[in-house]
């Protein structure tokens, strides 16, 4: 229809589901990742280490967030060649990051045939106003959030999975805790709310009413919710799980530490046995040096505040 005459279909049918990959199939993979750890890797060798440690997926990157922070400059999508090599090396799902609003980077990632795209604030923004219209893609997206309103706006744009933003590359869990507590706190508030109050609440958090109501009915976000941004130890990972997340992203925490293979395995075990302090104590022993942490003072750039 589009392009064949003067009548253009509004939004290219964006808000209707495509036959080939309905929303449930997109969310389905995220559901299969629940209770797992997704690790940032920069080459095929690291991807193999992550797979051997029991990661449920890997995020293919050129630089881990800690290096992006240290080196500065514009951070973009990784070289597709690198992502292909990583995909070749492992059997677990492979994710990759696209800049916020950069839908062509997302098209390229879809063409490579990876499993998930992370529209990430860790990379430099391509569009300050708009995110990618994720309904236009067959590939599923994961997006960051700091609060419930932001999460539901991303879901309305087509995100099939949500992660907290935290503060990537700092090895400091404080922001991730703040964001998880904010989302969970708002959901608890919403659950106790009278149906009449939901309209105003939706307006207040600037989120679509139908998704707010659905969240109230489900008692949780309508998609899988992971924690990300600052996880550096097994205890951090278990903390995120006990706060109610479905799984954990670990960025710089693994491969910026003294013994990546061991730490990766410990974090995977900590996420599975998050409620068992004895196992947590056991896996936390003798992991070597953790990544160098960063205290969040005014001089540290906040990636999380880059998008709304």
């Amino acid at each position, binding site marked *: 229809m589009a392009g064949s005459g003067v009548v253009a279909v509004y939004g290219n049918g964006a808000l209707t589901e495509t036959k080939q990959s309905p929303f449930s199939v997109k969310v389905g*993979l995220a559901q*299969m990742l629940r209770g797992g750890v997704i690790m940032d890797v920069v080459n095929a060798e690291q991807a193999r280490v992550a797979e051997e440690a029991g990661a449920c997926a890997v995020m293919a990157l050129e630089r881990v967030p800690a290096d992006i922070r240290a080196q500065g400059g514009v951070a973009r999508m990784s070289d597709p060649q690198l992502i292909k090599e990583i995909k070749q090396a492992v059997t677990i799902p492979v994710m990759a990051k696209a800049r916020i609003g950069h839908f062509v980077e997302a098209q390229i990632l*879809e063409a490579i045939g990876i499993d998930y795209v992370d529209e990430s604030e860790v990379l430099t923004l391509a569009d300050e106003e708009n995110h990618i219209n994720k309904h236009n893609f067959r590939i599923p997206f994961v997006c960051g959030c700091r609060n419930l309103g932001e999460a539901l706006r991303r879901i309305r744009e087509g995100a099939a999975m949500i992660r907290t933003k935290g503060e990537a590359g700092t090895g400091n869990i404080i922001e991730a805790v703040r964001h998880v507590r904010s989302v969970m706190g708002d959901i608890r508030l919403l659950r106790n709310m009278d149906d009449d109050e939901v309209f105003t609440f939706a307006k207040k958090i600037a989120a679509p009413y139908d998704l707010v109501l659905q969240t109230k009915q489900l008692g949780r976000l309508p998609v899988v919710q992971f924690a990300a941004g600052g996880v550096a130890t097994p205890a951090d990972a278990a903390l995120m799980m006990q706060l109610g997340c479905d799984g954990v992203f670990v960025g710089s925490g693994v491969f910026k530490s003294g013994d990546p293979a061991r730490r990766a395995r410990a974090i995977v075990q900590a996420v599975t046995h998050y409620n068992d302090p004895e196992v947590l104590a056991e896996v936390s022993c003798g992991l070597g040096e953790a990544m160098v942490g960063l205290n969040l003072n005014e001089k540290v750039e906040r990636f999380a505040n880059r998008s709304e």
Partner: protein
Amino acid sequence: MTIVGVLALQGSFNEHIAALRRLGVKGVEIRKPEQLLNVASLIIPGGESTTMAKLAELHNLFPALREFVRMGKPVWGTCAGLIFLANKATGQKTGGQGLVGGLDCTVHRNFFGSQLQSFESELSIPELVSSEGGPETFRGVFIRAPAILDVGPEVQVLARCPVSSNSNLHSSSSGEGKKEKDSESKVIVAVRQGNLLATAFHPELTSDNRWHSYFLKMAGDVEESSSSIESIGVNNSRFERSKSDLPIFI
């Protein structure tokens, strides 16, 4: 109230427990070998099979799982669980992965390809319908799914899925992940062998509980379920409703 164990290392165990709850059955999470002693039947959920195998190895679960299967206790594997139960699996990671085994078949891990090739399909399920009633087809959700390449003589095939409909998907994904071309137009996606049940798709992601009640009946655990389940089966609108639903969560 009967109790069913659900292997809770990673993956969709919450969804299985929720599905069991809808049938009035309690599901308990199994993470350690000794917890298997308290349950009479087990569901191995979907997830990443490599991850689940790694965690099972680290916590020494494989001997206990093999013993569980050997004793003839009912076990149902979905997706990754199917790979666990198979005697032979192809397409594994470098170095292979641990399997529980017991089901006489060969499974191709990740047969359908990456997430872009994930799909939903209405499967014809005569055996399940004769036992549970309801519509003739079941909405099968295939997520980076495996498929069963061949089965031994004792294995009963419960469902097949046409692969021809995916061939256009394969070609559209820029020649990525070329796999061996199957001359057959259908692959096996659900089987039963004695007390072992295995599905390549994810019944736990739909609101249609028939596979779960089938498994419970197989386990011979549900006393009054036959009446209540069939009455649900008559009401087809309940199954139709779920088409555009968001996925099932706890």
